[in-house]
């Protein structure tokens, strides 16, 4: 994207547009050369190597030489050594070679458990699926969970105990630490720093430690911790109370900058519950309504029926105004820019009309005041006990992590810390800049870091020891509603790590194994047969009856301040892919295009079009941002739908000790972040010299959306659907044609089909990550992404509609459509892509010779070509190839690949059902993307079975196929996106920008 986009020109073009509602990117609107290149050519850079000084003679010489060499190769074909078979000495019970086993455990995010079933192939975990019986998963998984399998095998993980870079043994470390701790008077000078602790066993160990050393202090720090939720509850109720939200009971939802389906505890459950009230198949189906105010487009916000971009101060002002309107004692605030009285009145009326079935939720990063106001509003609306439930805290000790870390740094600077034990986390990198944790750490004589990587904290501590991965050790953890999971290891520690429990045991003067520690904790808490309890609980993945006890707290008065608006406000967010930086060395996550921005491998300064215009910058320009006497240089990315006067900075990049993948990418936004203003601060911005190349996939694989008959994305309101229940115009804007040149295939057994419900697709990328894990999809690196060679079989296309300052958002997952009349099939000269008799457009890797004709002929642009040897094969394989699914071929260079509806899962179901003498049941084959989806947006099954869910879904009046005018007859269809705007606000709200 070398041309600079002029926002002014884009606005003019957009206002001129007739008949063209949906657009993909500002590049498309500006019709830049780069966009046209990606639109017109399947492989925009493929001919590059042949341009230049190649002569016909050189080519002929090479041709001749390669022919001769090929002949030689045939003569000298080596006899390969025999592959080895290594059977067990004693075969484990239940294990059948060739068939995976699934074990219930949990994935931890911010200390909270999300139940998973880990797929294990002969002791090798390869894939995580959600545990349907776990209340915080309900079968869904987050993209981060999917990618954690790759982190398990990461060869850059720390594998030795180190003292100042010298190799030591665990025994040397434990001897030293035990002696040092024993020498302290009552533990004075001993500090323990952990991340959020929900593990009952670890909590007990820590309380034992504090009992044994009364002067020792325990600190917690995790950037992702909900400090303001804790503070907000204390403001509203005067004590620690946790909240569970029940979106399945809510008809009207007001979200105050809460990305509740994507981040924070309970997100997967929120997504499932929220989507369960938006399942529109017929015009009679009801829908909830979401009002969302937020700073920049989030996955949740993209589903909102009314979405208004607001600055951080604007969100607080709106919260106060709504609270006041609901009769809560709140200060009067001027309505923020973007909100008018009509909008507010309509919202208030809607909320009041749904007393007890509405829900107000405050965002994770909002100040405590907004959380307290949300509690007061839910109380005023009678939602408590219905859509909102209060219960005892799930965390072992809820507290303000920012303050806890500041206290620790203060103590270290005072010289009152003798021994610091850090378990997990990377505070040297993630601490707010004004805390200067790294410098404080240098003054501690014995600092021990137990971490996954030899990271910034590990290298700066005097000792470092490897920490086990979640799939390598026994532990336990609680989910957002308190349900406890006993986590079981799937594999012995690959890199010799130890668990937090084992290090705590050392401090307690014990050398018990993690297994014994966790068991002994639970043994004291179970009545009856302990082994029976243990087996059942570990098998099921949840401890029965472990939900947190309910509470009925009473509101107390609190006072709030409304912050002043500033010219430019920096907003900090955890990176949607790599979090606070902890996943930086995970290639799958680095290459996962961020929702809506579609950026990979970097972080940026996100600006709204108007702000970019005011600053005179465009995409990939550099901007110097300064706050609190510190500054960073960041590349600009212009994001439609972001609040004017804000710059969004994702944390987690700028790592120096992440590993071979993650070091040196992006810029460190923590440099601008202070402890007092962790999520938002005023900044000054100055354009800097130079440009920075970003790898953005938004312009890649664009479907040609021009022409009168092209309606790729379709959407309408529920009212419009109710007006035309049989065939709504928005879903069927043009007549489909029926003519067909080719004879129809006849499907006598199964016919696989899929429906994707755009009404509930948030664009969260869980499907993309799940597909990558299931199908051995390699990563290609930033440079290859820049030239459009990313390999994801399923991608999420983002579309916008309307004004660039506040557009509507659409997410369209796009994978192979399995066309009945597939354009790719007839052009393959070697029959490598063929129609199979269940309607799959099969891809035969071993036949493919890499002509790429199929890809050139695919109107959906879903075929991916291995231009280079991206996958690890043979001699270049590392531990990462242990994450491969053994049921899927690892593709080599020069081979085309694409989605085949998880044909390996279909094959397995077919074999199993044949062996059992029956047919495949509906729901027996679940594709990887479908299994992961937190909103159940993907339905898959046999369309030859009239009673299957997928067949029923396809009868919906809003079911349509993409590019149906090409008559490719795709097996994947889409349900048009239906929104449920407030009838009082159907005239679009004017955004004051």
């Amino acid at each position, binding site marked *: 994207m070398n041309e600079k986009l002029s926002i002014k020109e884009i606005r003019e073009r957009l206002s001129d547009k007739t008949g063209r509602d949906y657009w993909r990117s500002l590049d498309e609107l500006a019709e830049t050369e780069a966009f046209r290149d990606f639109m017109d050519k399947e492989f925009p850079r493929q001919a590059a190597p042949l341009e230049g000084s190649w002569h016909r003679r050189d080519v002929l010489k090479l041709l001749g030489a390669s022919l001769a060499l090929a002949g030689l190769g045939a003569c000298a074909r080596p006899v390969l050594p025999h592959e*080895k078979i290594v*059977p067990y000495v004693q075969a484990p019970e239940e294990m059948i070679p060739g068939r995976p086993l699934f074990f219930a455990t949990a994935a931890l995010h911010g200390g909270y458990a999300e139940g998973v079933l880990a797929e294990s192939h002969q002791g090798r975990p390869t894939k995580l699926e959600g545990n349907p019986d776990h209340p915080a998963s309900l079968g869904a998984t987050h993209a981060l969970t999917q990618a954690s399998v790759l982190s398990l095998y990461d060869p850059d993980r720390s594998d030795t105990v180190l003292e100042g870079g010298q190799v030591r043994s665990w025994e040397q470390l434990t001897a030293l630490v035990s002696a040092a701790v024993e020498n302290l008077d009552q533990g004075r000078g001993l500090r323990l720093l952990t991340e959020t602790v929900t593990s009952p066993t670890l909590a007990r160990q820590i309380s034992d430690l504090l009992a044994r050393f009364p002067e020792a202090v325990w600190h917690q720090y995790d950037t992702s911790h909900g400090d303001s939720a804790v503070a907000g509850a204390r403001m509203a109720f005067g004590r620690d109370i946790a909240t569970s939200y029940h979106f399945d009971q809510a008809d009207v939802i007001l979200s105050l900058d809460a990305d509740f389906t994507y981040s924070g505890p309970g997100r997967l459950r929120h997504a499932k519950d929220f989507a369960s009230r938006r399942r529109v198949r017929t015009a009679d189906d009801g829908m909830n309504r979401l009002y969302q105010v937020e700073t920049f487009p989030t996955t949740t916000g993209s589903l909102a029926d009314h979405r208004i971009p607001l600055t951080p101060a604007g969100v607080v002002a709106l919260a106060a105004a709504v609270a006041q309107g609901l009769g809560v004692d709140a200060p009067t605030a001027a309505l923020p820019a973007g909100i008018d009285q009509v909008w507010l009145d309509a919202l208030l009326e809607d909320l009041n009309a749904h007393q007890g079935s509405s829900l107000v939720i405050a965002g994770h990063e909002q100040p405590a005041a907004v959380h307290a106001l949300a509690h007061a509003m839910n109380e005023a609306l009678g939602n408590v006990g219905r859509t909102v439930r209060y219960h005892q805290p799930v965390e072992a000790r809820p507290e303000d992590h920012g303050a806890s870390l500041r206290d620790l740094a203060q103590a270290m600077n005072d010289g009152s810390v003798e021994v610091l034990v850090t378990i997990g986390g990377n505070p040297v990198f993630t601490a707010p800049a004004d805390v200067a944790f790294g410098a404080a750490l240098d003054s501690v004589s014995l600092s021990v870091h137990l971490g996954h990587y030899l990271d910034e904290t590990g290298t700066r501590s005097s000792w470092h020891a490897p920490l086990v991965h979640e799939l390598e050790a026994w532990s336990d953890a609680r989910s957002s509603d308190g349900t406890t999971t006993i986590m079981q290891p799937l594999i012995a520690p690959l890199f010799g790590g130890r668990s937090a429990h084992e290090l705590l045991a050392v401090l307690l003067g014990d050398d018990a194994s993690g297994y014994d520690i966790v068991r002994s904790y639970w043994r004291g808490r179970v009545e009856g047969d302990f082994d029976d309890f243990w087996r059942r609980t570990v098998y099921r993945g949840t401890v029965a009856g472990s939900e947190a006890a309910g509470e009925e707290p009473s509101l107390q008065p609190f006072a709030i301040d409304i912050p002043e608006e500033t010219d430019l406000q920096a907003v900090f967010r955890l990176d949607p892919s790599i979090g606070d930086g902890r996943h930086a060395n995970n290639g799958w996550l680095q290459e996962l295009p961020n929702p809506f921005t579609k950026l990979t491998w970097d972080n940026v300064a996100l600006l709204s079009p108007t702000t970019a215009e005011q600053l005179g910058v465009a995409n990939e320009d550099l901007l110097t941002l300064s706050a609190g006497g510190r500054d960073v240089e960041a590349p600009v990315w212009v994001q439609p739908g972001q609040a004017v006067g804000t710059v969004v900075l994702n944390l987690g990049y700028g790592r120096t000790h992440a590993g071979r993948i993650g070091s040196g990418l992006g810029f460190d936004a923590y440099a601008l972040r202070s402890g007092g203003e962790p999520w938002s601060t005023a900044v000054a911005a100055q354009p800097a010299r130079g440009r920075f190349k970003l790898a953005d996939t938004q312009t890649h694989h664009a479907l040609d959306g021009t022409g009168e008959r092209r309606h790729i994305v379709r959407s309408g309101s529920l009212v419009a659907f109710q007006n035309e229940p049989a065939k709504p115009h928005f879903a069927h804007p043009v007549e489909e044609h029926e003519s067909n040149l080719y004879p129809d295939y006849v499907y006598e057994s199964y016919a696989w089909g899929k429906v994707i419900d755009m009404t509930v697709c948030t664009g969260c990328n869980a499907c993309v990550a799940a597909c990558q894990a299931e199908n051995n999809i390699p990563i290609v690196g930033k440079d290859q992404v820049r030239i459009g060679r990313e390999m994801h079989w399923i991608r999420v296309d983002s579309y916008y509609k309307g004004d660039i300052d506040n557009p509507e958002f659409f997410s369209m997952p796009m994978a192979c459509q399995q066309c009945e009349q597939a354009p790719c099939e007839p052009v393959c000269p070697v029959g490598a892509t063929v129609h199979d008799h269940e309607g799959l457009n099969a891809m035969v890797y071993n036949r493919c010779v890499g002509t790429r004709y199929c890809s050139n002929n695919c109107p959906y642009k879903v075929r991916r070509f291995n231009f280079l040897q991206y996958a690890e094969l043979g001699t270049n394989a590392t531990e990462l190839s242990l994450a491969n699914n053994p049921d899927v071929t*690892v593709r080599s260079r020069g081979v085309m690949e694409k989605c085949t509806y998880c044909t390996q899962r279909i094959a397995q179901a077919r074999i199993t059902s044949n062996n059992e003498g029956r047919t495949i049941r509906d729901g027996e084959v679940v594709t990887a993307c479908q299994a992961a989806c937190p909103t159940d947006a993907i339905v898959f099954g046999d369309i030859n079975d009239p009673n299957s869910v997928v067949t029923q879904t396809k009868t919906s009046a809003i079911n349509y196929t993409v590019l149906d005018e090409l008559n490719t007859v795709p097996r994947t269809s889409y349900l048009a996106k239906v929104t449920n705007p407030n009838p009082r606000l159907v005239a679009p709200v004017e955004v004051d920008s």
Partner: protein
Amino acid sequence: MPNYFPPNANAFAKWSIYGGIVFTILLVTSLLVYARTSNNRVRVPVEQPIAFKHNLHAGQLGLDCRYCHSSVEVSADATVPSTETCMTCHSQIRVGAPALATVQASWDDGTPIVWNRVHDLADFVFFNHSAHISVGIGCSNCHGQIDEMEGIWKNEPLTMGWCLECHRAPERFVRPRSEVFNLAYEPPTDQLELGRELVETYHINTEKLLQCSTCHR
């Protein structure tokens, strides 16, 4: 100017062109044959760390195939037995025999026995034992007279062409399920008739057998 080439040189030129074509075809064919056969090791005994005798165990002693290859009916893999399986008998029978030293050593110190793979399909082929067993393809259809082999070798080429011989016409090979593990089974004279009947009874989807996606994923 004198003629450098006599008139019969024309014929020489012509025949050398024909000869060249024939030579090239022969060369390519022989190279292909060489390349395909040299690697295939059909009926070539494969050396193993233990001189295990199938003819003794499956033949003379009459052990069922599934005693050792226990997952053959339920999984893609037939399973190479664990040392423990060997020791179920050999902790009682022929204890201390020199031929069993490797097995005993494996059992004593817990190191697995490393066998050489005999039937090695390409990595893009996904063969499933259970799918074949359940539709009446017998062990001996592919593995031959295992009960007569002193060593172990691959009895058939296991090329795609060989697979398709049966996938194109399963009625030529299917046998009653009860005879699957019978290594001495002889197809009846009316095999085709029986085969067609069994294809029907076992719901063998002959169309699916020829789809790429059946074996390649």
